[in-house]
């Protein structure tokens, strides 16, 4: 099919796919790119839509958005090691600045330390907990949508999310200053 001027109007199915793409592709790409980088995200978005057209959307099990994010997350499994390596690469925290009066430098280092701490935590999470957490945080899905996307009970999705967040917040020692 072509979108050049003068061509006949695309068939309804093609128009529908275009609408679906315009609706969901930006969010899907953003979610995937944050997990595995832009280059692979592009391939994964294309694979997600292709896989979607070869399977069947069941509207009784969730929204189109949840379904597409579920497919994308399943496809991400092939990139698991790459994803974890990416987090590990960002997990190296910068050292403290030498000059305690340099507030800009201190703020920058602290921000980098937060990124490093989160990356370290993400790398250490079990894959199923990381999926739920990031579908919520970066995919923008509700926990109930995540359950539909991953084909797990809603309670399972919620407990995975809870465990992931608890792990990322840090040790639950009583001497912390939360």
């Amino acid at each position, binding site marked *: 099919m072509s979108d050049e001027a003068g061509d006949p109007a695309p068939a309804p199915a093609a128009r*529908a796919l*275009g*609408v*679906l793409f315009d609706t969901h*592709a930006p969010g899907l790409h953003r979610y995937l790119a944050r997990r595995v980088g832009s280059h692979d995200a*592009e391939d994964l978005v294309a694979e997600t839509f292709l896989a979607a057209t070869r399977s069947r959307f069941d509207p009784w099990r969730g*929204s189109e958005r949840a379904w597409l994010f579920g497919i994308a997350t399943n496809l991400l499994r092939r990139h698991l090691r790459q994803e974890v390596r990416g987090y590990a690469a960002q997990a190296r925290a910068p050292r403290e600045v030498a000059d305690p009066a340099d507030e800009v430098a201190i703020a920058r280092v602290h921000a980098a330390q937060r990124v490093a701490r989160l990356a370290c935590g993400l790398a250490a999470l079990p894959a199923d907990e990381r999926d739920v957490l990031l579908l919520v945080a970066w995919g923008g899905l509700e926990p109930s949508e995540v359950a539909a996307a991953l084909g797990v009970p809603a309670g399972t999705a919620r407990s995975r999310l809870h465990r992931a967040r608890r792990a990322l917040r840090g040790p639950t020692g009583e001497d912390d200053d939360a």
Partner: protein
Amino acid sequence: MPERQRIWSENELDAALAGFRADAGPDAATLRRLRRRVTGTAGDAGVRDAFPAVVAERAVPRGRPAPGGRAFRWLAAAAAAAAVVATVSGVAAVTSGGGAAPAASPVPAAPPAPPVDGVPVPAAELGRHASDLEVAPGQYLYRRTEYAAGPFLQEWIPHDRSGTWLLRGSPDSEIGELRSASGEYFGPRGDSWQQPSQEFLAGLPRDPDALAALLQSDVVRRGAPYPDAPDHAALVAVASLLRSTAVPADLRAALYAALDRVPGILAHLEDGGRRGVLGVEWDADGARQRYELLVDPATGRMSGERTGAPGSGSTVSWGVADALGVPPAG
């Protein structure tokens, strides 16, 4: 204390997640390239099979909109239906616990069928022999709805649907007579399962998958008015459509087949195969509830509704009338 050893608050964690690789995302050129790649790869058939609702919604012209948007339409239609029911029966009972065959039905009875009572059947089976009564120009499709509580309603629907419709209540119904062009007794019809326009009926897909998906997106996803019973909502929407207008045979067949796609809606036959039942159960107010739409399998026409509650429900019969306000002979 070093960052690594301090417990983050929930807000701090959210902020850290929001800021992590926040600049990742596609630029316009990437999206254009991806769009060409995606739409150029997937075949039409695949898209149609995978996303029937979206295809149907984009491909089918919808009827003229009713004022006020979808929420308003739902509420207005529900209010109109409730008003009729309350006026007719004096209680909020659209459905009946009856189950008796329609009295004095102008429609020929179904042919004898083997004893299959209670055996589950595909819902599509109830529409397999769907047919329309022959209504000539100048004639009217006639519907009589008898409520278990006593009152009854008669309706005359003109061959030309834009002509004058007549809704007449029995003397004990207090509804009197309502006449309106296009059957708009309770306000404009439009894209509504409760107050459908002819354009809406014509635009509904006849493909059961597309219809099921459309039901889902139109009715179930919004949840109203049964957020805890989406299957019930789907069946009620179909019943509302059948109750509120004359639904052509091809659409009735598609609707029943679409209900096969709705988990929780079960069909079976009764009365030696003469009555089809589409039923759904759900929990509400601490009790198990049940709603059933009754269909004549010989014609695919709605033949009543029931809940099992004593004194509630209806039976529906159909015929062809030669004049407005005059019931068919016999």
